[in-house]
């Protein structure tokens, strides 16, 4: 029974166990069949046939359980060539002895036998040609991919690479464990299952280790840098990029010969990583270091695209300062405002240091202006915004120009300088229309409308206050013309509203201030405000 169970399920011999031998003549039939004996044992042991099959899987147990079946020889497989005779009804003929071990004596070497022998010889020959399996070959099948990779690295002597890789893999697994099984991290593929990545890592890390053993830091740096570049494209692998850039920097610090060029580059890369991660303060520190190193060699170090390291450092510093400044400014507290102003001025200076970086200057100016506007220092704000506008006008950056005009218009509007506000908003409106940016077009259109209305408001109020005949007629004229003009966007409010207005409008200055403040908050809401703005106005009239 035992060996049959090692055969696959479909194999006929396995099924044959439950068959009764067919067609056995009464004479040759044994009193006690294998099946009967086994069944008797089964009954005494209190097991079912299924249970017996399970027991039979384990050869050790089987020995103790099946004394009878071990006494009887194993059942010959049905259907195999040599034993056909045994199963055919054998009337009168004596049966061959039970058990497949004793082959019935057949006719001496006929054609089939010879062929079989030849086949066997051929098989033996083929088998002898196969290479012997060594321990390593077996291990290759038995172990996981990562395991084999690690073994390769270690036997070649690259133990530091091994440590680094194992620790990285473990770091990821720990992160996953810490995040809990419901975290989205579990949906992402794990590093240890991504064989190509592991291969790449192995290649570059071993290169790096070999280089570092020789003390060739630049080679180590470059292979680590390459590795970081490989992972750069996949957002899931940013932590790897991080790690390798950090190690790059560590390596670069060891190199003294090149006056710190490599170190500068390393600082730049780490800074960029930190910036994308959102830890701006630390990023700024690295960029400062980058700036400091590159300052001494302004004219010697060039990047691939021809710009000097120094310019690059200035641009990056400016960027990071602007970000930090605006971040600080957003919280809206007094000290933060001061601090952010300081940082933004630094940003401005950095932008000035690097030639041809009007964009940077522009954004810095813009940010500074915003802070000033929040502090209530409108003049300064206007000053910086004007610089921004000038700059963008000169360089021809349409989008920035549009933004600059818009912001300047806003500030002018809030100060009460409606003439300029209208001017700038009209500029912004035109540009955004030319650019085809529907969102900014809408916003600018509204703002433009509001600014025009505001400009008109003063004169209008004047007329109302004076209230003599000409004024009245003018007002009526204007009113009629205006109704004609504006009837399309707001058909019902204007004529209806005119009747309801009874109270004279408050003094123009107060009213303007109110309006201005309202405007400041309103600017983001876009088109919805359009109707309201118009409504207010018509009510006041």
């Amino acid at each position, binding site marked *: 029974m035992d060996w049959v169970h090692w055969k696959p399920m479909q194999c006929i011999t396995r099924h044959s166990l439950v068959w009764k031998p067919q067609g056995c003549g009464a004479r040759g039939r044994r009193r006690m069949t294998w099946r009967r004996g086994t069944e008797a044992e089964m009954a005494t042991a209190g097991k079912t046939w299924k249970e017996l099959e399970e027991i039979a899987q384990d050869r050790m147990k089987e020995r103790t359980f099946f004394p009878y079946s071990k006494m009887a020889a194993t059942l010959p497989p049905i259907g195999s060539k040599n034993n056909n005779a045994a199963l055919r009804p054998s009337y009168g003929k004596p049966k061959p002895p039970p058990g497949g071990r004793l082959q019935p004596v057949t006719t001496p070497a006929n054609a089939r036998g010879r062929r079989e022998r030849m086949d066997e010889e051929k098989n033996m020959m083929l088998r002898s040609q196969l290479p012997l399996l060594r321990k390593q070959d077996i291990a290759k099948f038995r172990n996981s991919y990562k395991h084999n990779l690690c073994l390769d690295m270690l036997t070649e*002597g690259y*133990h530091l690479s091994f440590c680094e890789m194992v620790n990285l893999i473990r770091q990821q697994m720990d992160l996953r464990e810490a995040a809990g099984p419901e975290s989205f991290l579990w949906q992402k593929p794990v590093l240890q299952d991504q064989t190509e990545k592991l291969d790449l890592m192995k290649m570059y890390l071993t290169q790096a280790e070999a280089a570092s053993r020789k003390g060739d830091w630049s080679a180590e740096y470059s292979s680590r840098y390459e590795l970081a570049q490989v992972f750069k494209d996949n957002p899931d692998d940013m932590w790897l990029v991080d790690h390798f850039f950090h190690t790059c920097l560590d390596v670069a610090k060891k190199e003294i010969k090149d006056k710190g060029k490599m170190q500068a580059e390393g600082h730049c890369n780490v800074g960029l990583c930190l910036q994308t991660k959102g830890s701006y303060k630390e990023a700024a520190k690295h960029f400062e270091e980058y700036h400091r190193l590159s300052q001494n060699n302004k004219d010697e170090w060039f990047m691939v695209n021809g710009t000097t390291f120094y310019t690059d450092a200035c641009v990056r510093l400016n960027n990071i300062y602007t970000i930090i400044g605006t971040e600080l400014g957003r919280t809206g507290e007094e000290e933060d405002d001061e601090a952010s102003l300081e940082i933004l001025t630094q940003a401005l200076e950095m932008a000035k240091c690097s030639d041809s970086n009007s964009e940077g200057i522009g954004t810095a100016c813009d940010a500074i202006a915003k802070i000033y506007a929040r502090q209530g220092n409108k003049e300064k704000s206007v000053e910086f915004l004007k610089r921004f506008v000038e700059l963008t006008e000169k360089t021809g950056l349409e989008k920035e120009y549009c933004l600059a005009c818009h912001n300047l218009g806003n500030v002018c509007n809030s100060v009460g300088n409606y003439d300029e506000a209208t001017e700038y908003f009209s500029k912004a409106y035109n540009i955004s229309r030319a650019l085809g940016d529907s969102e900014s077009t809408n916003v600018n259109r509204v703002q433009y409308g509001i600014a025009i209305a505001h400009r008109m408001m003063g004169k209008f109020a004047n007329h109302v206050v004076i209230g003599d005949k000409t004024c009245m007629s003018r007002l009526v004229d204007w009113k009629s013309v205006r109704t004609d003009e504006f009837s399309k966007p707001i058909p019902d409010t204007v004529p209806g509203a005119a009747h309801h207005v009874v109270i004279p409008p408050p003094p123009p200055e107060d009213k303007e201030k109110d309006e201005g403040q309202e405007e400041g908050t309103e600017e983001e809401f876009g088109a919805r405000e359009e109707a309201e703005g118009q409504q207010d106005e018509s009510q006041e009239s």
Partner: protein
Amino acid sequence: MLKYRVVHSIEHQKADWVGIHEKICDKLAFLRQQIPFLPSREEREKRQKQISIKKIELIEMTRTLAQKMLFEGKHEQSVPAAMQSLRYAIDVYGVATIELVPSYLILGEASIGLGKLAQAEEYLAKADWTVLKTPDCSRAIKSKLYRNLGLLNAAKGEFQGALTCFADDIYHASEEFGTDDIRTAGGYFHMANVFFRQGKMDVADSLYRQVIDIWHEHLADVIKARTPSEEEEALNRTRVLGPVKGMFEDISSGMDEAQEAEAIQILNSIHDIREHQTNRRPEDLAQTCHALAMLYFVFHDIKRAKEYGRKAIVASDEVKDDDFSKSLVEFMKLCEKQGAQI
């Protein structure tokens, strides 16, 4: 009953001649005493449980003892202890179980040490087979098995095979304990020895360096954890009626005996290598000396600790590393204090 007594005394004497006697005697006495007549079933079960707990304790103890003797180089003397552990392990767990593997491994290692490679191979093959048949066997055991197989290969002179085995050892150990654990360091050390014998000095050097780093860090941690910080010291001084206790009394190594012996063996042999190396880096020797000094400090051997500390200071003169010199100076101060207290 008489027969039982005789067997007892012979076995006892056998265990006796190597000096593991006083350590295991009382436990053996408990196990070998006559089975008292216990009428109730509960009592019998209770006693059974007690006996098996004692046996497991005995197994652990004899194993650690044997391992320690191995690290001390007393291969012959470790055999009886290992045999004792194996005997009781078979008694408790059965014939072909994973619990026997550590004993087999110790026996294998002892045989390697005694030069009986065929016998060692036999023991290790048994262990290997058991591990193979136990799919959920712990990585710690696998690591130990591969370490011993590696040693066997190295003793036979099959360096490539030895490297593969040690690689497996390191892999399993780092999966279990982390790459920078003292239990992984042994694998690195043996691997370094193989590279050393192959003549690949750069690889061996870097491996030795890692081993020293691991031990250095571990010992520094031990000392740091066991030494009271400044504030605690101040607190002790202000406390008038507190128990008068030596401040370093509770410094113990935090390792078992086998690990202590391993530390001594590994660090000393690396120190020897470094001393005889002509083209070594100065910081390597300094760090090795410092690690050794810390080790002896942890063992309360202040004299040797100071000696190695001084060596480390001499060696570190060539190194321009302020942090390292500072830690050395601090360590020497600690030594002085401790020495004064004794």
